[in-house]
C-alpha cells in the first residue's frame, strides 16, 4: 500500500489569492444555531450562521471574543461540551452527509481524518506525557490503518514538511522540549497527517510572538501552494487574514455580519462594525490618523437577538435596527459576492431597502 503520496504528488489546485475561485463547495453550513444552557440562563452563542467553504479556498473568519467564531466551527464537529452546549438547529453538509446528525463512529472518522483542527494553544492541546512521534502517528494508525513503522516514517516526513529541523530526532521529543512556534508546527503537522479536505485553524498564531507568527504564516502559505487544502482560519487580527485569505467572514454577536472576497472587503467595508473595526486598528503603514473607537461593549448574548445586535453601538442605527434583525444579503454587483447584514447603505447614506 502506498500509504501517502509525497507532497509533490498533490495536484495543485488552481485557486490562488483573490484569483478565480473554484466554485465547488466542500462544506455547506446553513442556519447553524448553538446555545449554551448555563446557570445564568441561555447564552445564544451562534444564531443562524450560513456559509460555504469551497475546495482549496482559504476562508478567514474574523471577530472579537464572544462573537461566536470558534463555537461555530467547533459545533460543526461537535467539539463543544454538550451539555451545556446544544446545537439547536441547522445543517452542515460535508461529503453528502449532515455533520450535525452523524453517529459517533462516523463523526470520529471525520474528525482528524477528513477535517483537521489546529487549536490556539499548542501547549494545552498536545499531551505532555506522550512523545511528538506517538501523537503524530496516532491519527495515521487510527484513520489510515498505517503500521507503526509507516506512521513514524510519514510522521517524520510531515515534521519535515512543516519546517521542523532534525525531524527524526524531534519525533522522540516531548512537547515541553519544543518552543511555542515548534509546537504549533507540530499541531499543523498533526492536522495535515491524514490529508484532510478541510483544515480548521482556531487562532493558531495568537499565542505566538510576532516573528514566530511570521514564520508560521509563511509555512502555511507554502503548504497551501503545495497541498491546496481548504482552510478556515479563525482570528481576531485583521492583518493576518488580509495577507492569507481568499474570502473573509466577519462575525459579531453570533451572526455573520459581512462576507466578501478579501480585496473587496478591505477596500469597501460595508457593515458599520467592519468599518469600525478597520478604523480602530492603528496602521503601521499609515500614521497620524486618529483612532476611531467603537463605543460601548460587545453584546452579552443572554437574550435572543431582537433587532440588529450591533445597533446599540452603531452610529448609523435608526428605528428599524432596534426591532428588525436584518438578514445577510448580497449587495452591489453579484460578481463581487459581497454580503452584508445591515439595513443602512453607508455609501449612499440612506436605507438599503424600501419599506
Amino acid at each position, binding site marked *: 500500500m502506498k500509504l501517502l503520496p509525497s507532497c509533490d504528488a498533490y495536484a495543485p489546485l488552481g485557486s490562488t*489569492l*483573490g484569483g478565480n475561485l473554484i466554485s465547488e463547495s466542500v462544506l455547506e453550513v446553513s442556519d447553524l444555531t448553538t446555545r449554551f444552557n448555563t446557570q445564568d440562563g441561555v447564552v445564544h452563542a451562534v444564531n443562524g450562521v450560513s456559509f460555504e467553504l469551497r475546495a482549496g479556498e482559504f476562508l478567514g473568519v474574523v471577530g*472579537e*471574543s464572544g462573537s461566536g467564531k470558534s463555537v461555530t466551527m467547533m459545533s460543526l464537529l461537535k467539539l463543544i461540551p454538550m451539555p451545556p452546549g446544544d446545537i439547536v438547529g441547522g445543517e452542515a453538509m460535508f461529503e453528502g452527509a449532515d455533520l450535525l446528525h452523524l453517529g459517533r463512529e462516523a463523526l470520529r472518522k471525520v474528525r482528524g481524518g477528513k477535517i483537521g483542527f489546529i487549536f490556539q494553544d499548542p501547549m494545552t492541546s498536545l499531551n505532555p506525557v506522550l512523545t511528538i512521534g506517538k501523537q503524530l502517528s496516532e491519527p495515521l494508525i487510527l484513520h489510515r490503518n498505517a503500521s507503526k513503522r509507516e506512521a513514524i516514517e510519514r510522521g517524520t516526513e510531515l515534521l519535515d514538511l512543516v519546517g521542523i529541523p532534525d525531524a527524526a530526532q524531534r519525533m522522540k521529543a516531548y512537547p515541553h522540549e519544543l*518552543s511555542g*512556534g*515548534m509546537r504549533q508546527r507540530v499541531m499543523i503537522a498533526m492536522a495535515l497527517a491524514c490529508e484532510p479536505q478541510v483544515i480548521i485553524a482556531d487562532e493558531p498564531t495568537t499565542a505566538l*510572538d*510576532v*516573528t*514566530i*507568527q*511570521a*514564520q508560521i*504564516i*509563511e509555512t502555511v502559505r507554502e503548504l497551501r501552494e503545495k497541498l491546496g487544502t481548504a482552510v478556515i482560519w479563525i482570528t*481576531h*487580527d*485583521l*492583518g*493576518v487574514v*488580509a*495577507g492569507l*485569505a481568499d474570502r473573509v467572514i466577519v462575525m459579531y454577536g453570533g451572526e455573520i455580519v459581512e462576507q466578501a472576497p*478579501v*480585496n473587496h472587503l*478591505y*477596500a469597501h467595508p460595508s457593515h458599520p462594525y467592519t468599518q*469600525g*473595526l*478597520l478604523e*480602530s*486598528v*492603528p*496602521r*503601521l*503603514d499609515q*500614521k497620524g490618523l486618529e*483612532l*476611531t*473607537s*467603537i*463605543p460601548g*461593549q*460587545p453584546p452579552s448574548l443572554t437574550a435572543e437577538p431582537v433587532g440588529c445586535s450591533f445597533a446599540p453601538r452603531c452610529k448609523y442605527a435608526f428605528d428599524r435596527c432596534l426591532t428588525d434583525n436584518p438578514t445577510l444579503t448580497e449587495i452591489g454587483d453579484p460578481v463581487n459576492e459581497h454580503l452584508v447584514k445591515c439595513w443602512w447603505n453607508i455609501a449612499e447614506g440612506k436605507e438599503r431597502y424600501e419599506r
Partner: protein
Amino acid sequence: MSADALTQATDAAASPGDREVLLRVRDLKKHFPIMKGIIRHRVGEVRAVDGISFDIYRGDTLGLVGESGCGKSTTGRVILQLEAATEGTVEFQGRELTSMRGNALRKVRPHMQMVFQDPHASLNPRMTVASIIDEPLFEHNFGPKAERHAWIEELLRLVGLSPAHANRYPHEFSGGQRQRIGIARAIALNPDFVVCDEPIAALDVSIQAQVVNLLEKLQDELNLTYLFISHDLSMVRHLADRVAVMYLGKMVELGPVDELYDDPQHPYSQALHSAVPLPNPVSESFRERIILQGDIPSPANPPSGCSFHTRCPVAQPECAQRTPEWREISPDHWVACHFA
C-alpha cells in the same frame, strides 16, 4: 561601556529642544538567580535585563517593544523599584532611586505609577471600585475622607466611568472598564510618570482603541510621561514619540518614532517591522518579508557577542565575538549593531 558617553552626549551636545529629562536609566541590569539542589545553590542566572541605558523626556511617551521574554516588563518594574536592580542606576527627577530605601523611596513612589496588563488580576475582587482607588490615596495621606471621596468621583469621570460605579465590585465590569479603573488608580496621586505594561494586550480590538484614546487624553490633560510597554508595533507607532526595541535583555535600537518605523537600522527592528501583518490585502501581497530563522535563545544562556547573531540575516563572523557598542548614529537615534 558607553553609558558615560551617553550621559555626556545628552547633557552637552544634544538635549534636543531643551527637553527636560524626567528619567535617566544607565547600564541597568536585572539578573534573576537560578537555584538548584537541596541547598539551593546558585547555578546560573537569567539575564532579564542586561545593561540598558536611555532617557525619557517629560511629557513624552517612550514605546518599549520586543517579544515575550526580552525583558521589557522587567525593565518597567525595575525602574519603579518593584524589583531591585542588580546593577546600574535609575535617576528620576534628578534623584537616584536604586540606592534609596524605606521612607525616602516611599516619598518618591506617588510620582511614579503603573498600569498593569491583566485588568482581571490586578484589581482585588473583594474591594469596591472606590476602595481600590482610595487605597493609594489613604496610604499617601492625600487628605480627609470627604476630600478623597470627591477626588475619586472626579477620577471616575476622568476615565470615562460614572461616580455611580464607585460602590460596585470589579466583576461587574467588562475588561475595558476594568482597565479604566486600573488607570484611575494609577493617576490618583497625580503622578508624573506612568509605566503602562501592555495595558491593552488583554482587550478586544474594538475596546483597545477606547483605552488608548483615554491614555492619550489623560496625557494631554495631566501632562503625564509614559513608558508604554507593548508587543503591538502598530499601537506603539500610534502612541509613542520615541521607541526602543529590546531583544534578549538588551536594547538594540532607540529613536524617534518615525525614523524607527520608516527607516529601522538594526536588522532585528527591520525583521520585527516586516513581521507585523497589515490589514490591507493589497500591500500585504507586495510586501517583502524578512522571516527570521529559529527561536529566541534563552536569556539564561545568551549567545556570545551580539545576542542577535544566531538569527540575524546579515550576521558576520565578528558578530559572534564582539558585543556591538550602543552608539548614536544620528541625533537621538541609538543602535547596537556593527553594521548599522
